């Protein structure tokens, strides 16, 4: 079994996992199942990143989405009273604006994908490309310095806001 075949097998297994679990997220009538199957979707996407030599992005995906956002969603779902008995409507609303948005997003994504010069594109040998972390780090504090700082300020504002909301009011 050569590495190209192996690459294809792994890719299709991951893609099937992502698609299957993502369709559960969208179509399941049980909100808890939807939340938990996100775990497999996010994991599968992280696997695809690894397959595309984007090691830093893959681990960040796990860290941010599984460790942060998914746990937050689960907390939200679990602390909501009578989760299972709530009847979630899964109808389609606003078809035309949704379709326009979807097409626009897909168009933007495709144009970015085509315009980007990919590091290590086309190689199926996992060992050729070394870690991408130093390059990402350098780019973040040189070319994208402003965006990096803006993001950190936004996060700081969010933290302060969260602390303000969570703070217990002093009782008179």
């Amino acid at each position, binding site marked *: 079994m050569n590495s190209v075949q192996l690459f294809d097998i792994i890719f299709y297994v991951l893609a099937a996992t992502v698609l299957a679990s993502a369709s559960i997220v969208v179509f399941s009538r049980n909100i808890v*199942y939807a939340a*938990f199957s996100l775990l497999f979707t996010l994991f599968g996407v992280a696997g695809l990143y690894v397959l595309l030599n984007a090691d830093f992005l893959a*681990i960040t995906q*796990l860290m941010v989405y599984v*460790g*942060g956002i998914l746990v937050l969603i689960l*907390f939200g779902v*679990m602390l909501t009273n009578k989760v299972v008995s709530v009847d979630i409507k899964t109808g389609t609303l606003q078809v035309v604006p949704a379709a326009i948005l979807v097409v626009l997003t897909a168009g933007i994504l495709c144009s970015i994908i085509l315009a980007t010069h990919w590091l290590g594109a086309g190689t199926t040998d996992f060992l050729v490309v070394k870690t991408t972390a130093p390059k990402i780090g350098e780019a973040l504090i040189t070319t994208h310095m402003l965006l990096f700082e803006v993001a950190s300020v936004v996060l700081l504002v969010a933290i302060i806001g969260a602390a303000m909301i969570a703070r217990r009011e002093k009782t008179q």
Partner: protein
Amino acid sequence: MDQFLQSIFGDSILTQLLLGVLPLVFVLVYALVTLYSEMKIAAHIQDRLAYMRTGWHGVLQPFADMLKLLQKEDIIPTAADKLLFILAPYVVFIGTYAAFAVLPFSSAYAGSSLDLGLFYIIAVSAVVVVGILMAGWASNNKWSLFGAIRSASQIISYEIPAALAVLAVVMITGTMNMNEITKFQAGGIQNWLIFGGPLPLGHKLFLLPVMIVLALIYYVCSMAEVNRTPFDIPEAESELVQGYNTEYTGMKFAIFYLAEYANLFVVSAIAVVLFFGGWSSPFGSFMSGPIWDLFWFTFKGMLLVFVNVWLRWTLPRLRVDQLMYVSWKVLVPFALVCVVLVGAIMVL
């Protein structure tokens, strides 16, 4: 190790599978040893004897326990969510076992010498949180749910100071590859990062107190992350019966326990790699080599596991508010100050 297995089985997928399964063998043996020694240490701390009847000083007891758990009836509560109930123990174990992929057991064996090893270990531990929440919710039991929520909030809170401590070490070594961090500290006990690493004497003197504080912060956080006393609020027996795994029996319960013990070793091993020289020998080149490296790594790891067991049977449990206080108002500020100090010392 890779070459050795390749010479036997050839360059096939079997070689890779065997390389991946090796830590599992370690986990199983280690769990039996720790199960036995934890009970024995606990008993001696409390002036008891523990197992004395099964074999010499009860050494066969873990095997008996294992056989008992294998035979036990596997009960799934009727009110439980069957699918998630069955899935949860495996998700927890997968999250724990995934961390073993990057642990450098010896200079000759590390599952994967990943360049982002430390980052990876911190990230995959998040999967455990999801598994615990899954177990707690699927059990349809108030104790389980409370245990799961407490456990998740605790692990998330203590990940922050732990990650800051890790960050400080990465700032010194300049790499997140666990093998490279170990090699950085080679050459004897004086080069371990807890003693300031192999830096010029001036740097070392300034780093020494900072590193000791960082090691302490990391160790406290690691205790919280494995849900053990004084941070065993998620399974506080007197309040919550057993926490998120209350409803589990038989092999599923055993898998949770296996995962907990495996996680205990993972966090100890990370501490060993970060502060205590990893697999490198404390005597420089004396007693080093692949087999000795394995011995040193396991020995240091087990020593930290022992300290954890020792503390478990010595300290009382924290309250929930004290838990959050320790994390957010004590550990995080100290860790931040340490990170800034390490940065300043490294720039000088």
